[in-house]
Each structure stands twice: as C-alpha cells, then as structure tokens.
C-alpha cells in the first residue's frame, strides 16, 4: 500500500480507522465469508491498476502516432485495433476513438454522467476528473476550465468537448511539440503527459 503524504482522513490518524475504512473492511470480510469474492483476486486487481496499467501506455501510443504515419492512420480508422496491437486493451477500453488535436481544434474529454475514462491507456482517473467541478463545467465553460490547468488557447483554435456518455472511450492525441524532430519514440513518450491525453494539457516541450 503506497503511503504518500496525501491522507485527508481526519479521523484516520494513528491506528484508528475512519468509519468509512471500517465499513469497507467489514464489507470485505462479509463478502469473503459469503464466498462471493476471493481476497487474492482483489489483490491482483489492485496491483494491476497500481503498477501495470497507467498513462505511460497512452504516452507510448501517442509517441508512435507522432513518428509512424501508418500507425496514425490506423488510429484514426480503428483506434481499438491500433491500440490493441500494442497490448493495451480490455476493460473500459473496448471501443476506442483517438481524437487528434490540430492547429484549428483542441479536443477535451469529460464524462458528465459518471466518470468514464479509457483505463487501458490512462489507468484510473485522477480525482479532479471525477469531481463535480470538472464534470459540471467542462461542457459549459471549457476555456475557463483549461485556464485552471494553465492552458490558454490561441485565437482561432476551437474547443471540442467529448462527453463520454456511452461505452466509446476517447484518447486525445496532443500536437507534437516543436523542436522534437530527431527524437526517439521513447524520448517523445516522456513529453506526453496524462492531462495532454485528456485534453486538459498539452505535450511538454523538450528540455
């Protein structure tokens, strides 16, 4: 269990568990006692999303799209198959669509009704993505939301917000930064932030 200095449970100090922590623990014991869940299976699920599936997957997809035009075309035609060819597939990524940012259009993804998010390429969503402020405002004032992420778009660039109301999952392909001509796919992937693939950020410039 990672201890990260981000604990916010006020009653989670010392060895005392918060009421919610106790409730979760009690439910797990009950479900295990009833034979509905295998605790070892829970461990595998947690480990998968802690260590195996995260935004580095998506960053590799983006870097390949930047360097391999045939792959970029495949992504545009059939993102599920193209992304699947790199081994990223399955739960919450069954129907993928890649959204390519251009000088004219900036794409940004939200799920106003819950928290739909492309798990195989980005991992589990950050707290802000699931938060009421983001879910409520992304569709009505995307430019103001982008400013809170430090992104101001130039004149003449439109924002397209994609509300993930069905089982289609969206991956934004940010624009390739200037001055990255000779870089390897691996170095390029390091410029691709998670937020740039949600559309609340842009790719980093090379140092």
């Amino acid at each position, binding site marked *: *269990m*990672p201890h*990260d200095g*981000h604990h*916010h449970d006020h009653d*989670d100090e010392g060895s005392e*568990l*918060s009421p919610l922590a106790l*409730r*979760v623990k*009690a*439910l797990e*014991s*009950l*479900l295990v*006692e*009833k034979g*509905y869940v*295998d605790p070892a*299976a829970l*461990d*595998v*699920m*947690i480990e*998968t999303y*802690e260590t195996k599936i995260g935004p580095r997957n998506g960053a590799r997809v983006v870097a390949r799209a930047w360097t391999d035009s045939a792959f970029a075309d495949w992504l545009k035609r059939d993102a599920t198959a193209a992304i699947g060819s790199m081994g990223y*597939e*399955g*739960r919450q*990524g*069954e*129907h993928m669509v890649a959204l390519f940012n251009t000088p004219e259009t900036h794409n940004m993804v939200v799920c*106003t*009704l*819950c928290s739909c998010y492309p798990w195989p390429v980005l*991992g589990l969503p*950050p*707290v*802000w993505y*699931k938060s*009421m*402020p983001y*879910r*409520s*405002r992304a*569709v*009505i*004032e995307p*430019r103001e939301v982008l400013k*809170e992420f430090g992104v101001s778009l130039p004149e003449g660039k*439109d*924002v*397209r*917000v*994609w*509300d993930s*109301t*069905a*089982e*289609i999952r969206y991956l934004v392909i940010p624009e390739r930064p200037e001055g990255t001509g000779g870089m390897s796919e691996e170095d390029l992937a390091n410029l691709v932030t998670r937020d740039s693939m949600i559309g609340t950020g842009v790719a980093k410039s090379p140092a």
Partner: protein
Amino acid sequence: MNGPHDMGGFTGFGPVIPEAGEPVWHHDWEPRAFALVLAMGMTGSWNIDMARHARERQPAMTYWRSSYYEMRHYALILQLVELGLITAMEEEQGKMVVPPKPVKRVPTAAMIPGILASGGPANRPSNRAAGFITGAKVRARNINPSGHTRLPRYARGKLGEVIAVHGTHVFPDSNAHGKGEDPQWLYTVRFTARELWGKESPDSVCIDLWEPYLEAAQ
C-alpha cells in the same frame, strides 16, 4: 432520471483542482473499495448499467458530498441488499447471518488478468436499420424518464449533427432495468456551444447518443 449524477452545465461547485504528482489512491481503504466493486461486478449479479443506475439513485446530497470511491461503495451496498446477497444487518456487523445466495461465478486471482484484458464490449448485432447517417441534422428528444438514461439534460431539445455512426450497442435505458440489451444504433452528435448555451462561441460538445434519444430535424 433527472438525478444528481447529471452534472453537465451546473456551476457553483468551485474550481477544478488538479493535484501535482497525484497518487493512484488517497486512503488505504480506497483500493479495497475499488476492488470490491469490480469483483462483485464480475460475479455476474448485475450489468454495468445497473451499477451506474445504483450510483445515480443515491440521495442527491450524499452523491455530491461523497468522494468517488465512497459513493461507489454506498451504491455497491444498495445493490447487494436489493438483490438479497447480503442484509442491511450483515453489512452493519460485517458478519454472515443468512447463508449466501448462489452467484454466477467467483473469479480466482488467476482469472483476473484475462477478465480485465477481455473487458465487456457493448456492441451487439441487430437487424435494425440505422435511422441516421453522418451529416444528418438531429434533435435530442425532450424526455425525462424516471429510470436510467444516458441522455444528459443539457442536450435535451437541442439541435445537433451526427458526426459518427458506431454500430448497434446495448441500450442502457433498457439494460439498467433488466429488460434486455435491446441493441440500438449509437451515434456521436455534435452540438454547438451556441445551441447548447446560447453564447457566441466557436466551441462545441460531442455526445454519444442512441437512436431512441434522437429525432430527425431540418
């Protein structure tokens, strides 16, 4: 239902607060709560639309005040109790009182990677013909069903344009209520910010909508 989950277009929830270097979990109980929801889903006791509907049936104030994993935990308890897989008293005490009910499957640790990798595709074959093609002008119907729907309130009655046709997919409004998958054509419809919000803007919102949500427009 016009529930607390239908957030698009609200203001008053404050700024979006990104967290630098955000960890996967913020409390020790979160990974366990996350995995319990996933594991119980894998028993085949309900489908994803039923799970979403249980979340949106939380009392509005509970829904808005709770963190994501907290809200999902409450919805999980609701589903377990409604299906008689546990009783409210058992949940309170964390101890079995009545014998378990049979479930379709209980995945072992070894089965998990395969289950996660195959996922649960929502596309289904159907004999229905598509009602719209790319470029078609459509209006989202003004419906306010008491049950589950994935047509956000902010789009109802609004005029848009079909920009993608995705084939036939499980229809949540039916599937969430155990009335079958009833596959329907799924489209991405683009609405201008001007149409949705009445403001001068070059921006737009693209929403995935099933055919029963739409009618032809001029």
